[in-house]
């Protein structure tokens, strides 16, 4: 193992840095705009804190591009262990906010272990999948990988932070798919979710099982044992989903209900989505101008420097601003997938695909949420939402992608 001190800006590192930096500068501008009139004076300084985080994040980015991925491969279990301990500790010492324990407070700053957990989890899963000699179709290997994902996901659910938990699950599925897990096993993970959603209506559930048995099962042409397992799991999940529904917190239930019909309580929980759509729609093509968004400035937008920051961008900079942000993300994702495809090193490829899928999924869920396409999930927009942990981790992911791409020719 050799510490490489190569220029991080070879092989396209520059353009990735610029894409991330543009998003972060947009973030600082938007956080300033969102909080300039805030009645809470502490929030008015957030844009300054975001600058400090940006400086830190830039340093972390360079470090990430410089430190060989192999080192992370070695230390992955340690990272993973620390993340688990921090998440456990959170249950004991974490600061509570909005009815959830998600932060460690460090003076003016706070750390979100779930964000660090995302990095640790990607390393850990990539290492296991690379090191294990079993074929990816082996049930033992899938079970072990599921356990790596399951432990950390359950701890995040326990906070409760459903949004981050879904990120872990999706990153896991994408990495498993990347590693070549047979499609029929993916079905084992995906169909229960569909069964759960369909079970809200008896007719939908019957239609779901008809499709499962008469369309999906013949298509995968699998063994009888697997078919029975698949159907049984779906039956069990569907049957118990009503119990699970009742175990959701009231606000989580409400979020799903509001997603299905935001108008049902326009001054209550549906307020966020309605005001977000008003902010975005009223921005028009070119926006109302920086610092001139009335929905933003006059307090109509909730959580506007964190989860709903895209609404501020769309109100003040219009469709132009929205498209620029989405285009910057699209460029980063494109580079991430290309790095994974190019890489000759299985671990590097898995890390690149994990990092990219984490960024992409969070971006899609966040923007989908503020546009009213998805339920309010509490997932931040990478690079842009205010929050040091999220920003740092976004830059770490960016650095990992650059690192993997730069060293694509290294064999494992």
């Amino acid at each position: 193992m050799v510490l490489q001190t190569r220029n991080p800006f070879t092989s396209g590192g520059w353009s990735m840095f610029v894409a991330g930096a543009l998003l972060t500068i947009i973030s600082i501008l938007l956080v300033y705009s969102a909080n300039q009139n805030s009645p809470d004076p502490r929030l008015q300084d957030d844009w300054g804190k975001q600058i400090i985080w940006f400086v830190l994040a830039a340093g972390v980015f360079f470090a990430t591009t410089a430190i060989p991925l192999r080192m992370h491969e070695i230390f992955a279990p340690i990272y993973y262990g620390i993340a688990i301990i921090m998440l456990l500790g959170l249950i004991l010492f974490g600061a509570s906010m909005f009815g959830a324990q998600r932060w460690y407070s460090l003076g003016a700053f706070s750390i979100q272990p779930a964000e660090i957990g995302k990095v640790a989890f990607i390393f850990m899963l990539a290492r296991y999948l690379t090191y294990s000699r079993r074929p990816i179709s082996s049930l033992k290997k899938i079970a072990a990988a599921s356990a790596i994902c399951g432990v950390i996901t359950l701890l995040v659910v326990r906070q409760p932070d459903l949004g981050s938990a879904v990120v872990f699950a999706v990153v896991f599925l994408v990495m498993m798919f990347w590693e070549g897990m047979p499609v029929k096993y993916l079905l084992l993970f995906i169909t229960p979710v569909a069964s759960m959603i369909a079970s809200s209506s008896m007719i939908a559930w019957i239609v779901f099982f008809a499709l499962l048995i008469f369309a999906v099962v013949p298509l995968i042409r699998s063994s009888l044992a697997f078919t029975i397992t698949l159907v049984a799991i779906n039956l069990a999940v569907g049957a118990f989903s009503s119990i699970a529904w009742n175990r959701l917190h009231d606000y989580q239930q409400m979020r799903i209900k509001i997603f299905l019909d935001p108008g049902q309580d326009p001054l209550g929980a549906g307020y966020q989505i309605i005001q977000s759509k008003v902010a975005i729609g009223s921005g028009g093509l070119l926006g109302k101008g920086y610092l001139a968004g009335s929905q933003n400035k006059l307090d109509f937008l909730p959580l506007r420097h964190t989860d709903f920051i895209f609404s501020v961008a769309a109100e003040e900079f219009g469709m132009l601003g929205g498209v620029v942000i989405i285009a910057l993300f699209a460029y980063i994702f494109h580079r991430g997938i290309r790095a994974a495809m190019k890489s000759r090193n299985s671990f590097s490829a898995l890390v690149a695909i994990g990092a990219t899928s984490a960024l992409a999924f969070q971006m899609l869920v966040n923007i989908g949420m503020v546009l009213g396409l998805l339920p309010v999930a509490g997932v931040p927009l990478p690079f842009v939402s205010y929050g040091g942990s999220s920003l740092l981790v976004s830059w770490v992911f960016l650095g990992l992608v650059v690192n993997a791409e730069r060293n694509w020719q290294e064999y494992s």
Partner: protein
Amino acid sequence: MVDQVPKTSRGWILTGGLIAAILLILAKLIYLQVFQYKYYFQISEENRIRVLPRSAMRGKIVDREGRLLASDRPAYTVSIIPSEVSKIDYLAGELAPLLEMDEKAIVRKVADRRTRKYEPVAIRRDLSFPAVCIIEESNELFPGVIYQLDQTRTYYYGKSLCHLIGYTGEVDEREAKDQQYRVGSIIGRAGVERQYDQFLRGIDGIDYLEVSATGRIIGPLDDRPSKDPLMGDELALTIDMDLQMAADSCFGDTLSGAAIFLDPKTGEILALVSKPTYDPNLFAGFVSRSEYQSLAGDERLPLFDRTIRGTYPPGSTAKILTAGAALEEGLITPETHFGACRGGYQFGNRFFKCWDKRGHGSLGLLAAIEQSCDVYFYQLGLKLGLEKWSKYARACGFDQTTGLDIPGEKIGHAPDENWYEKTYGKYNWNKSVMLNLGIGQGEFLVTPIELAQFYAGIVNHGVVMKPHVMRYLRTPKGETNYYHAEIARGLPFSEETLEILKEGLYRVVQSGTAARSRIPEVTMGGKTGTAQNPHGEDHSWFVGYAPALDPQILGCVIVENAGHGSTVAAPFVKAVFIKFFQKKGIIKMPPPPTPMPPLVSAGNGVNGAAN
């Protein structure tokens, strides 16, 4: 077996999924920002802008000599902002005694507001200053309760003009939708307040304020300047308050009826009285339920405007119609005599009485009008026949409204053959109905304003003017729009016929049934009427005009259940005519009475005067 996808394909599958998801997001973004831009922009404007209306002063109302009849005066209005009140029942309980209102009435007013809950709902107008002070001092106790200096309508001759001027009320949610008026703004509900509402109401001013999501006012909007309210037009009536008061005082507090005085040449109403009356000031501030119920439940019907909505048999005043129709048809000449009056007329097996049971003997037309001989008109009616009678009654306007500029006018009833057939069946009535119709009884009903208009046409060469109470409307800038006198119709009578009828009317006052109401200084014509009425005593009618050759004023009075026209209604007309000609200088004013020291305390003046 679809098992393992090659590695490059996996990359492309992920790329394809990502592209699809990003395209979906872009599509939604374009949909919101391009296709729904106007919709959401409007919502965001409504979000940030609070429109605070500033009520315009309602135009004042004056009489023909400029005397102030109605105007807005400053008063405190207490309002509740529904969005800021959480426990309305509790708040209403606390406020009710202070506002002297029913608790439920407060709750109802707030609950009635379904939209725009952040705009204040006026709960109580014209609150006393001490009560306002209490609300100001206990601000903390009453969240969401505000008071503003507003206006309240005041009627200075309240009772004497109540039906004519009407009253105002607040626009409710339904009206606000239909007519684009603001909920809670003041609207004319009756009388000329309603008729000329669009001119009187003025234009409300608007303040545009920028507000935050919590309702905090940021300040005035830079891009939308406030609009000052524009006061409503001044409405001058044709009413002469001297005549109005004179007519009103004739009835005293006990008699019911209607009195109309107008200029037959123009149709200008000089006095319009319906008795009994109510105080419209009750409606201007706020009217408690019990007060309204006592008004609405009063069996003398003070809310009922008898001048335009009361339908009465016209009695002998209708004989002019019968005579005119017969003359016009060439059935009679003024010299035509019918069978002599012996106190009644035998028709089949029924005896129809004349009002004077001593009988009038054999009379010509003019003497029959003069003495109001029923027997003469029974025979004339029979000769005329129902078909012709109803044709003339309708041509004279008894089947339509007069066009008076006060809303709610009713139409009397001039029956024809079809009506009798429909009502009684083909063979269940006969031409004996003409005996009654010929003398203004039976199924013939008129409103006082219809009768006044008919007589005004008789004395105005057959030209029937539209009666009106509006003289002019004057905008705050001083532009004045006068009412243009309008012809309603022409009477179906020739100049010769009219001359004969006027000769008869002149004789009624000179030597006939109304001789006691003669005025020495002024010649006068007129016709008494005594309308039989199934509900009680006869109604007393008199229609008179003066001077007889060139009428300047015409009066039509009905006093309910008061007996003969000559004894009650005619002296009322005389009293008002004297006032009218005194003002013209034709009759000398009596020397003013020596002032007497008041017998009762000054505050009781109005009640004292009534006795």
